[in-house]
């Protein structure tokens, strides 16, 4: 009635584990599935939709039923979980347990739940779906995520080579040997612990007189000894991507690591991925006890576990006869083979008959009566009236073999249907990707071995190497019968009704597929999406071939005409944690300056800003709020002096004979008249006229400039400059050098700035006459070589000091020391924001918001329209002819000076229905002791001194008066001092 252990002295140590709360004993080296079978467990799962009881069907990745939750892993295949002491596993999708599941009621309502039922109902009343959705969602889904996840230790590693060989069965090993001996650098990956491939292949095989195990052992030792061969075991190649890139997941690569993600890049790929067995289609073919024949054989061979005492085989091909014979020889009771074929090869029949297995030809299993296999009903294919019962406790099915063509298809390979195998095979193309062995339709050990050697030689030649033939004379396989497949077989039915499953994992029946075709969802993709066949956890590995055959039958077409759905990575699920190699602070790189540590020690609140930089937002003293800290920093700046770190601002040096020509084309400004030692605020536009970036440009020498960009655009600016230098105007003589991180950029500004600079010690003449506004001087500051520029973003007297980055802290501390008596304080970006609003200075990303051009911003003084051309000029001319109102920079004042107009507030049109502008920047000004704001407003300059109505983010309306966009020191006398 159930599984048991075959006598076997060579078992591993006993282990205890529990399943659905019940204790069991297993052995080291077994999978959870093997141990459950050995303990006679039949019902280990409930199906996805109908919650029908299910047993273990397969032995590896082809398993569609036995999904369990282990510790904090919601979904594991019981056939791939290695047993360990104390393992606790629960069936998913079943409550309270697989054996007794309350949702089994779904099966009763099965007829109301055909494929696509949910599209035909749940539409009302009103927002109907939301009412029903909760129930559907709770019924759907499999496992739960863990409340307290355990640590998942993973690592990513790269490997490169000439060729990746996927699979270490006979084809893969033969290809790898051929390639490695020819001198290629080989990476070979196999999902198993050791080479050999599908275990059933090896038994009864002699290669030049040696048994398969020892041949594989010798081949493996040879490959492992070669320095240019990397062999990965327990490593499943999950995806093939463009240009020879592949991913593989290695399980338990070493102590302390759970999984390793391999990122492989090779010039060529040889796929020896094998094939998996196909189920048979008949009513109630999902009952516990129905298993893949290859799996039943595998449990006996590998684990010494008999899945039942009386196995009946239902197969439509002769290769199954070899498996049945092997199974019998291993000591498992096999009583009969039910075979729908009328004509069966005599050697196959003779082989099994000699072992006492009856062959019931031209018969099919019609249905299974009970809730578990306690016998099957069989009948002659042409006469269902002669149906009778056949006793058995396991029905081992073999409906043919499906080559695994996933990797071939991932990166663009095509497949074509082969009627003899009733399977889709890879079509060769011009990519350096070849398939060998069972996955190319060469089933059987000898054929696979020869094919691997052949393909290996082809690949070697493509890589420019000469390969010798493999030195194998003779391969003998004990029972090797040609496949002789009767194409995908569906048993006839005695009466309509009953569920014959095609996709066990998605609970999709043959009738569902025919319903889809009837309703017009008859292309293979529509069928898949409508019925969900092939969309479950196993992505249809066991089911798709049969589904295509059933659909073809429904359409009166060939499977080749139906085609396949798209194969997509990963071949099997990959734990997200294995892919996400970056955690914590390493999620995205961030950049710091040599002063960042000082900012943090000064308890600055750090912000993430553009370009990946971290900058100090404000420096709150104990108990200070953001507004209080900002007001304090602003007051100090306008009354005394502040110091801030401007290092992340982009800096690029440009040198060459044609530098002025180049800059005049890139910027809106004139540069020819800029004297060496002087600077000018410059602006760059996109070709369509919008502001791209701004910054001060200094002329160091007639042919040598230093430009500044905004922090966020530093990389984009360099990219654009290089593009125009190398591609657009390669005839110009100039070179670019990015120096953003080489120079630290410390700004000292405020009325006391000059005094502090003198106090810290400098050889520069700081007088107004010698060092005017916008000049650049080189010399020493605090004993450090520096370039000093009189540039101001705050509107106060300001010195921007550039020193080598490694000397920044030294200068910073020296300035703080020298400025202490003057009341110096550090300034953050929040206060900087307030100070520039007071001055009406635009900020890229705020007022230059990706829409406005410089005329919109009231900056016609920066645009030298008399230049023959510069980037953006042609579009500015177009904009000037635009009759529609353009957004213009204005200031806004709230009637109540204590109310700060919210940033982002929309300015309403006259009708009050739509927006015609918005507040770009707003703050409480400590200098003016009232709120101020900047805004972009359509035709704003025509509306000066008038009232506008605002609509705030919180949904209120308020008034404001339009004013000029400058609030403090309109003649900028303070910064020019």
């Amino acid at each position, binding site marked *: 009635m159930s599984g048991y252990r075959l006598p076997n002295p060579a078992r591993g140590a006993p282990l205890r584990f529990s399943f659905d709360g019940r204790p069991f004993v297993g052995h080291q080296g077994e999978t959870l599935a093997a141990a459950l079978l050995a303990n006679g467990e039949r019902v280990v799962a409930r199906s996805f939709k109908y919650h029908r009881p299910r047993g273990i069907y397969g032995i590896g990745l082809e398993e569609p039923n036995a999904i369990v939750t282990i510790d904090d892993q919601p979904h594991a295949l019981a056939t791939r979980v290695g047993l360990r002491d104390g393992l606790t596993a629960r069936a998913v999708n079943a409550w309270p347990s697989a054996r007794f599941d309350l949702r089994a009621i779904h099966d009763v309502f099965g007829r109301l739940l055909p494929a696509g039922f949910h599209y035909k109902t749940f539409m009302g009343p009103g927002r109907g779906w939301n009412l029903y959705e909760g129930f559907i969602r709770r019924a759907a889904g499999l496992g739960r995520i863990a409340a307290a996840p355990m640590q998942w230790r993973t690592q990513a590693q790269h490997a490169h080579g000439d060729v990746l060989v996927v699979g270490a069965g006979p084809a893969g090993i033969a290809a790898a040997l051929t390639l490695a001996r020819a001198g290629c650098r080989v990476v070979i990956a196999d999902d198993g612990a050791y080479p050999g491939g599908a275990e059933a292949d090896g038994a009864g095989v002699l290669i030049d007189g040696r048994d398969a195990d020892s041949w594989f052992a010798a081949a493996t030792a040879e490959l492992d000894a070669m320095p240019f061969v990397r062999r990965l075991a327990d490593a499943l190649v999950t995806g093939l991507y*463009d*240009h020879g890139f592949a991913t593989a997941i290695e399980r338990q690569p070493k102590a302390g690591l759970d999984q390793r993600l391999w990122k492989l890049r090779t010039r060529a790929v040889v796929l020896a991925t094998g094939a998996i067995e196909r189920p048979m289609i008949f009513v109630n073919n999902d009952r516990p006890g129905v298993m893949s024949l290859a799996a039943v054989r595998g449990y006996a061979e590998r684990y010494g576990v008999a899945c039942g005492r009386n196995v009946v085989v239902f197969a439509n091909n002769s290769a199954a006869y070899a498996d049945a014979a092997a199974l019998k020889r291993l000591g498992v009771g096999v009583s009969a083979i039910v075979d729908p074929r009328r004509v069966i090869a005599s050697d196959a029949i003779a082989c099994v008959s000699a072992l006492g297995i009856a062959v019931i030809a031209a018969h099919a299993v019609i249905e299974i009566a009970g809730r578990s296999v306690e016998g099957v009903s069989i009948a002659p294919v042409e006469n269902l009236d002669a149906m009778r019962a056949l006793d058995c406790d396991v029905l081992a099915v073999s409906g043919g073999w499906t080559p695994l063509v996933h990797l071939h298809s991932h990166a663009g390979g095509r497949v074509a249907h082969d009627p003899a195998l009733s399977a889709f095979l890879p079509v060769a193309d011009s990519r350096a990707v070849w398939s060998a062995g069972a996955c190319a339709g060469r089933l059987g050990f000898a054929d696979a071995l020869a094919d691997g050697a052949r393909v290996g030689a082809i690949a070697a030649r493509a890589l420019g190497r000469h390969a010798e033939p493999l030195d194998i004379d003779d391969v003998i396989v004990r029972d090797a019968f040609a496949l002789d497949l009767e194409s995908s077989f569906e048993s006839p039915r005695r009466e309509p009704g009953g569920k014959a499953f095609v996709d066990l994992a998605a609970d999709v029946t043959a009738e569902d597929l025919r319903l889809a075709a009837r309703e017009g969802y008859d292309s293979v993709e529509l069928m898949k999406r409508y019925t969900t066949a092939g969309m479950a956890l196993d992505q249809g590995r066991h089911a798709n071939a049969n589904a295509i055959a059933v659909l073809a039958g429904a359409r009166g077409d060939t499977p080749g005409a139906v085609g396949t759905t798209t194969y997509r990575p990963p071949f099997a699920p990959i734990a997200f944690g294995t892919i996400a190699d970056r955690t914590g602070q390493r999620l995205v790189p961030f950049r710091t300056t040599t002063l960042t540590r000082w900012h943090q020690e000064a308890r600055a609140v750090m912000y993430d800003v553009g370009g990946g930089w971290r900058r100090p937002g404000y420096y709150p003293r104990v108990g200070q709020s953001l507004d209080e800290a900002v007001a304090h920093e602003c007051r100090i700046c306008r009354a005394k002096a502040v110091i801030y770190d401007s290092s992340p601002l982009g800096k690029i040096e440009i040198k060459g004979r044609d530098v002025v020509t180049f800059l005049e084309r890139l910027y809106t400004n004139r540069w020819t008249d800029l004297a060496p030692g002087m600077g000018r605020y410059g602006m760059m536009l996109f*070709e369509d006229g919008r502001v791209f970036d701004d910054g001060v440009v200094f002329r160091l020498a007639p042919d040598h400039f230093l430009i500044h960009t905004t922090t966020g655009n530093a990389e984009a600016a360099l*990219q654009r400059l290089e*593009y125009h230098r190398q*591609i*657009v105007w390669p005839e110009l003589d100039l070179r670019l050098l990015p120096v953003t991180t080489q120079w630290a950029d410390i700004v000292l500004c405020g009325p006391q700035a000059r005094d502090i600079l003198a106090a810290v010690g400098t050889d520069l003449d700081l007088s107004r006459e010698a060092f005017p506004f916008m000049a650049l001087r080189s010399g020493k500051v605090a004993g450090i070589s520096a370039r000093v520029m009189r540039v101001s973003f705050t509107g106060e007297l300001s010195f921007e000091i550039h020193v080598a980055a490694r000397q920044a802290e030294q200068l910073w501390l020296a300035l703080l020391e020298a400025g202490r008596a003057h009341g110096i304080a550090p300034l953050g970006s929040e206060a900087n924001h307030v100070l520039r609003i007071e001055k009406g200075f635009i900020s890229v990303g705020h007022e230059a918001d990706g829409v406005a051009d410089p005329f919109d911003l009231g900056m016609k003084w920066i645009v030298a329209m008399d230049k023959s*051309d510069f980037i953006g000029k*042609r579009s500015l001319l*177009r904009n000037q002819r635009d009759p529609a109102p353009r957004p213009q920079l204005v200031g806004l004042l709230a009637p109540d000076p204590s109310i700060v107009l919210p940033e982002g507030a929309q300015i309403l049109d006259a009708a009050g229905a739509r927006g015609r502008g918005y507040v770009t920047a707003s703050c409480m000004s400590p200098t003016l002791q009232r709120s101020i704001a900047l805004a972009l407003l359509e035709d704003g300059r025509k509306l000066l001194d008038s009232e506008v109505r605002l609509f705030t983010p919180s949904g209120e309306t308020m008034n404001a008066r339009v004013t000029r966009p400058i609030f403090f020191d309109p003649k900028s006398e303070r910064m020019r001092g």
Partner: protein
Amino acid sequence: MLLVTCPFCGPRNENEFVCKGETVTRPAQPAALDDAAWTAFLYLRDNTKGRHEEHWWHKHGCRQWFRAMRNTADNRFTP
């Protein structure tokens, strides 16, 4: 992940580069273009499915721009 061949550094992973897209020639005399031609330069693209001439920048490498020919229907570069 594409393997992009920088003419100076050899084949490197795609994430070392920035792809600007199809090659576009900046008009020598923008002022001479009428609005329709200027609009075409600014916004209209061939967006070819097939042989696609494009510009790449080796951002995390030699900082050189180069032209490449790639088939956008199968991602294969032709030398």
